[in-house]
């Protein structure tokens, strides 16, 4: 109720387009008597350099108002912006900022790292509130539209008085075709892309390229061989991610390589899924892998199964199967949450050789603790290429390593520059 009353006051203020403070009282007879000067409150000082502009790098649905606050402005005032589609009004409430609100240099996404007026305050307006048509209705929020000219009234509202900019400002929000604040991201992405593609091309011409050893992946062959010798199944447990995430795609890529070897060894491979789309892709990948190595009979559709889509139901079911079937090898691949340790500890209890690969940094310690081999972070993405031993894919691994070397160099130089009080490199790589 209080909020509605407050809104009604503010809306009425902009709607009428009149000064905020009333300087007259209405008597019982309806005539107006001017207030004495001693009673009338002094309005807070109006800031200077008030400007309205389109917000850059957006979809044309926001404008920004900037101003230089007066040094003598009381700390309890609020700056308000009214919005209209016509210079004569009606003006609706578009937003407000406190006296100690954000300043231009706090928001490099809009104003860049070196703004012309870093100490100006600002307010982003992306919508305005239209008061309800009936007393029991709700106010309606209206979003700004691209290419529509809006008129803004700026006011400073104090406890008992206020001041308003005499003339409205006009501004037209425009749609943009590129997010300029993400330009650094795009350039780095293109750079790393070119590096990786260059090494892929280089690997085509030079197939004997040196790639650092990854112990966990060298152990895959040994782990699958162990399962074959023991006559027990290999468990491939997917993480909790869906096919829309790169780590799930990386896991499926590894599954393809593992399924080939398992089919050649004539061992049972059981693939546990908690996402129906990952299930469908996994079934296809295992089937094609079996056909590829000339063992279509090795594909058993029942062995690529949907277990449960809820985290702990999935964990309970997979753990139960592990305890009953006691697999020789357990491969945990993808993004895991709290169920990681439930899987890995159960695998440990049944004496399985365990290889885990995850990009979930919170679960890496648990896997290191309980698994025989753990692929950390980017090794999950490298695994498929490493197992394939195909020059083109190995080239991308070298590209990844070169990219990492570049990042290490930037981090080292950036740290040194920051310590010396030089910030340009930090700004260059900062995500906005």
């Amino acid at each position, binding site marked *: 109720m209080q909020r509605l009353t407050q809104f009604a006051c503010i809306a009425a203020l902009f709607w009428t387009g009149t000064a905020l403070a009333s300087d007259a009282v209405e008597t019982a007879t309806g005539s107006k008597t001017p207030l004495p000067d001693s009673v009338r409150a002094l309005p807070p000082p109006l800031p200077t350099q008030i400007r309205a502009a389109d917000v850059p790098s957006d*979809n044309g649905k926001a404008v920004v108002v900037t101003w230089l606050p007066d040094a003598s402005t009381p700390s309890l005032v609020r700056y308000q912006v009214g919005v209209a589609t016509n210079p004569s009004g009606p003006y609706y409430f578009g937003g407000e900022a406190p006296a100690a609100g954000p300043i231009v240099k706090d928001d490099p996404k809009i104003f860049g790292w070196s703004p012309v007026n870093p100490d100006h305050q600002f307010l982003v307006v992306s919508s305005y509130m239209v008061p309800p048509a009936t007393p029991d209705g709700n106010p309606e929020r209206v979003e700004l539209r691209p290419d529509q000219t809006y008129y803004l009234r700026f006011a400073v509202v104090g406890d008992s008085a206020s001041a308003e900019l005499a003339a409205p400002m006009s501004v037209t929000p425009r749609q*943009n075709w590129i997010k300029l604040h993400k330009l650094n991201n795009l350039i780095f992405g293109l750079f790393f892309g070119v590096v990786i593609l260059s090494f892929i091309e280089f690997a085509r011409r030079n197939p004997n390229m040196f790639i650092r050893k990854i112990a966990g992946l060298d152990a895959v062959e040994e782990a699958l061989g162990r399962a074959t010798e023991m006559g027990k199944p290999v468990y491939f447990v997917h993480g909790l991610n869906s096919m829309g995430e790169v780590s799930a795609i990386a896991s499926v*890529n590894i599954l393809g390589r593992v399924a080939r070897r398992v089919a050649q060894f004539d061992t049972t491979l059981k693939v546990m899924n908690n996402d*129906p789309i990952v299930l469908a892709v996994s079934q296809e990948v295992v089937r094609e892998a079996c056909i590829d190595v000339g063992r279509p009979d090795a594909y058993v559709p029942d062995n690529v199964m949907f277990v449960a889509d809820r985290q702990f139901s999935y964990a309970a079911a997979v753990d139960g199967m592990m305890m009953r079937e006691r697999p020789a090898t357990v491969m945990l691949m993808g993004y895991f949450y709290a169920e990681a340790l439930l899987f*890995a500890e159960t695998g440990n209890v049944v004496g399985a050789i365990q290889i885990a690969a995850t990009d979930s940094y919170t679960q890496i310690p648990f896997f290191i603790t309980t698994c025989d081999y753990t692929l950390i972070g980017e090794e999950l993405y490298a695994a498929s290429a490493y197992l394939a031993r195909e020059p083109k894919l190995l080239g991308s691994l070298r590209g990844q390593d070169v990219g*990492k070397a570049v990042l290490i160099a930037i981090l080292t130089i950036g740290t040194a520059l920051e310590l010396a009080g030089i910030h340009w490199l930090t700004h260059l790589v900062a995500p906005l």
Partner: protein
Amino acid sequence: MIFFKRTLPLVIAFVMGIVAISIYYIPHQAAVDLNDLLSKWDRIIAAFAAFLGVYSLLYLHAGRLKRRQAGWGYSVFVYLGFVVMLTAAIYNNGAGPLVALRKGGAYDWLYTNVFVAADASMFAILSFFIASAAYRTFRARTTEATILLVAAVIVMLGRVPIGALLWESMPELQQWLMNVPNMAAKRGILLGVYLGAVATALRIIFGIERSYLGGDE
């Protein structure tokens, strides 16, 4: 046939990959609308895939029941749970299946009092698993394990009142461990992860990595 099994998926992967990357850098409303459209398609495909999941689950457990495979009793519970929950959802407290799920109905009751309770029990088991894993790790047989043990003891003590009681700087020390060495390692891993994701995405977009299609090394 090869066109539908190989070429078309590779073309779709390339086009959608480039479109998805472009959308990220384009703020224009057309790009926002395209992103919304793709999200809707994603949800529609996921809804169809849910049927695949249900089919796989029921088919798998039917086979286990038929063969009286070890642990077939659990398959009975899968069917029982499926039928009871489905019936409760369709009945929907008398409102039928074509309206939003009613609060306080049988489905709601079963979810809160059976499913959530079982889920919480499973989560609770985690504490025992952590204890056994920690015991094995913290036996301090190597230098690395000893460092891990000391760091873990400091972090654990620093986060409870008795830590400050034993040594007043314990909370600050644990905070430093979390903010400096731990954060540095975390960021190192994340940088590698992001680079790896970029490399994997490029391999898929340009058709270099094809194992997700099955076969064709």
